[in-house]
Structure formats: structure tokens, C-alpha cells
């Protein structure tokens, strides 16, 4: 058999063999396989796309959450600030009230003290007056036991009267 001259028999068999291989492979291997591969690629494409979509949605959700969180934070800050202000005001108010009340208390205490003092003084004055009267009486009784003294005293009085 020659090296570079194709032999008719082998060409025939090769043609027959290759064409039957082609036919069988196309029918039983390549067609189903290529179809499946295309299907799988479509599946993968779809999966990738939906994953992308999901990711976008997640990102959206996340940003929304972030926004909500931000808003909540802001609100919280405002509330805290308000509360702080309110508490400050309350403290201030109570302080004011307390001082006012204190002042009033002091004032009323002072008034009471004053009245007490006045009363006490009056009492003391009365007591003093009474005591003086008693003393005077006693003295007078003692001094006026003799007539001379009585007359002297009357004179004295008259003198004083005259002077007045």
C-alpha cells in the first residue's frame, strides 16, 4: 500500500465510518448536549441576573434602612434635646419656686418673729409696768407711811406739775 496515494477502499470505509459517526454523534450526543449546555447557560444567566437583582434590592433595602435609622437617630436626638431642655427648665423652675417659697417662708417667719417680738416686748413692758407699779406702790407705801413724806411727795408733785 502506498504512502502518498490514497487507496479507494480506505476512502470508502473512511467516508462510510465518518459519516455514520457524524450521524450517530449528531443524533445521540451533540444535539442533546449542545441543547443542554445552552439551557444551562441560559439558567446560569438567569440566575446571575436574579442574583444581581436581589443584590440591588438588598442594597436598596439597606439604604432605606440606613435612611430610617438616620431619621430615627435624628428624632432621638431631638427628643433627647427636648427632654434635656424640659428637665433643665423643670430644675430651673423648681429652683425658682423653691427660692420664692424660701423667701416667702423667711418673710413670714420674720413677720412672726416680729409679732412675737412685739408681743414679747409688750408683755415685758406690761410686766415692767406692773413691776414698776408694784415697786412704786411698795415704795410709796413705805414712804407714805409718815405724813411728812406724804406732804413732801405732794409737794414734789406739785413742783413737777408746776414745772410742766
Amino acid at each position, binding site marked *: *500500500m*502506498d504512502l502518498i496515494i490514497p487507496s479507494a*477502499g480506505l476512502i470508502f470505509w473512511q467516508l462510510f465510518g465518518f459519516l455514520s*459517526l457524524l450521524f450517530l454523534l449528531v443524533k445521540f450526543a451533540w*444535539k442533546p*448536549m449542545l441543547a*443542554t449546555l445552552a439551557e444551562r447557560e441560559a*439558567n446560569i444567566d438567569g440566575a446571575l441576573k436574579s442574583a444581581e437583582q436581589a443584590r440591588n434590592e438588598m442594597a436598596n433595602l439597606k439604604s432605606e434602612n440606613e435612611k430610617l435609622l438616620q431619621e430615627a437617630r435624628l428624632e432621638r436626638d431631638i427628643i433627647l434635646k427636648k427632654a434635656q431642655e424640659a428637665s433643665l427648665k423643670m430644675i430651673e423652675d423648681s429652683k425658682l419656686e423653691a427660692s420664692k417659697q424660701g423667701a416667702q417662708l423667711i418673710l413670714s417667719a420674720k413677720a412672726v418673729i416680729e409679732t412675737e417680738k412685739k408681743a414679747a416686748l409688750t408683755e415685758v413692758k406690761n410686766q415692767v409696768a406692773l413691776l414698776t407699779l408694784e415697786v412704786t406702790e411698795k415704795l410709796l407705801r413705805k414712804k407714805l407711811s409718815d405724813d411728812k413724806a406724804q406732804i413732801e411727795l405732794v409737794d414734789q408733785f406739785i413742783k413737777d406739775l408746776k414745772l410742766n
Partner: protein
Amino acid sequence: MTRKFLVVSLLFSVFLMNFSGVSFATASETEEGKEDPTGFIMHHIKDSHEWHFVTVGHTHITLPLPVITYASNRGLEFYNSSDFQNPKTHKFSKEFAHNGIYIDNHDHLGRVDGGSIIDFSITKNVVMMFLVIAFVLYISISAARHYQKNGAVAPKGVASFVEPIVIFVRDEIALKSIGPKYKKFVPYLLTLFFFIWTGNLLGLLPGAANLTGNIAVTFTLAMLTFVVVNVNGKKDYWKHVFATPGVPAALLPIMVAVEFIGLFTKPFALMVRLFVAITAGHIVILSFIALVFIFESYSIGILSTIMVASINIIELLVATIQAYVFTLFSAMYIGGAVTEHQQDDHH
């Protein structure tokens, strides 16, 4: 991993050497009694009517193959290749003519009366071809079955081996070279790739036939590509051939002739490239093995074993590259024929 591979291929080449060595020993018994190293090389490279595996001592272990002949006045006839040979030496010769038909010592079939006869024998290459076909069918169909069973899922087993190749041929060869109309040609290109690749690889096994390095095989494959290209040739393709655009009218006759010849040189190049690449590889490997028997020296033996191992590795590469190139060029020729727009950048 690499070391393991090297060791295996070294063993492999030693194995190959043993096989080829014994066939060398038989082939060397030429008429002049001289050693003829090209004999066994050519014997391996060419087709044969019987499959010779090994010779142990003087016993040839062969597979006799059917001989089918056709002659217009005799019709189809079936024989066994052992009918035409010396039962001991297994040599074909005119002396062992059977029923008016003989096979000469160059494996040519002829008629004793000199009449014409066509040889449709199941030769060694035909058997090899059917083995390759069976192998390709087996792996491809079992890969396809994986998807039929499991639906569009990730590949597993054989499918994970076949699928990347299928995707490579579809996306890198067919889609890139043919363009948007690639789908129709993918099955043909896939079959081409798998057949040539498997043929190249199995041809490297010791004792295997040189199928893809046979001119009749490459001729048939190239012819099929030629048919596919020209059957699918669109208007622009034929216009490009017979009324090449942008060429002055005076030059047109020459251009048309050139373009017309070009139609045939493309498949011719396909045919020759694959034939030469594979046959040359086999010749180189066998030549290194032949050195051992010419020099009969241990050092040459070791050296050529190493050389055979390394060339076998290169041949593995060549087997793949040639299958790729044949498929790629087929796809490019198809692409040139089916594209609808002008292709002036070709010249």
C-alpha cells in the same frame, strides 16, 4: 506528578520499543538478507491487510483481517487475509495467490490475470478507524447521557472531560471563525475534532495503526470539509471567486483562475498538513527505535529510549494541535463561505 508521567512514558517507550523491535527484526529479512531499517518504519506507517502485533521468536502474532474485493466481472468477494500469505512468515506474495487474487509484498492487491480489481478490504486502518469511532461514540454518548439523566446540571465523570472540549470547539473555534451562523456547523466540527484527536492519540499507542497519518483518511476528511464549505457557499463567496471585487477587469481571468485553484488548495493543505504531521511524528519515533537495532549498543539504546520518550510527549502535543488546527481551518473555510459581507482583507 510530572515525574510519574515521565516514568510512565519511559516505560511506555520501552514497551513500544519491544514491539517495534520485533517487527523490525521481521521486516529486516529482506531478499538480499541485508537489514532494512526503513522497512519496518514504512510497514508501520502504511496500511496493511493484516494486523501484526508482535513476533515472539519466529511466531507472528497477528490478527488476520477480511479481504473484500470487487471486480466488475466477479462481483463482491470475501476472503481472509491469511489466504494470501505464507502461513509461517506471514509474508504476502504473488506465490500465495488464492482464487486468482494475490496480495504482493507491498500489500497491493491484484489479479493473477491482470484484470482490474478494487480493494475494499477491512484493512488495519479500517479496523483502527472503527475502534476510534467506537471510542468517540462511547465517550460522547456517555457524556450526553449524563445530561439526559440529570438535566442541565454541572458535568460529572466523562461529561466533565467532554464538556470543556465541546464548549471550546463551539466558542473558540466555531463562533470565532464562522460568526453568527456557527450553530449549524458545530456538530460537524465537534465530530471532526474528536475523530482526529482520538485517532492521533490512539495512533501513538504501540502496535496501533497510523490512521490519521494515512493520506486516504486525511483526504476524506478534507474532502468532507470541501463539500461542507462549497455547499454552504453564499453569494458573496462565489462572487469572491468568480468576480473578485476590486480587481481590474484585465486581471480578472488570472484572478479567477487563482481563486478557483484556491478552492482546491484549501482542502489540499488540510489533507497534507495532518498527514505529514502525524506520519512524520511516527517516522521520527520509529527512527529512534531503529537506531537501537542498527547500533546494537546499550548507550544508544538508553539515549534513544529517552529521545523516544520525549518525542512521544511532543507527539501528544502534536496530536492535539493537529486536531485543533484541522478543525480551526475547516471552521475558517466555512466562515469564509457563509459570511454575507465582502471580505477584501483576505489577500
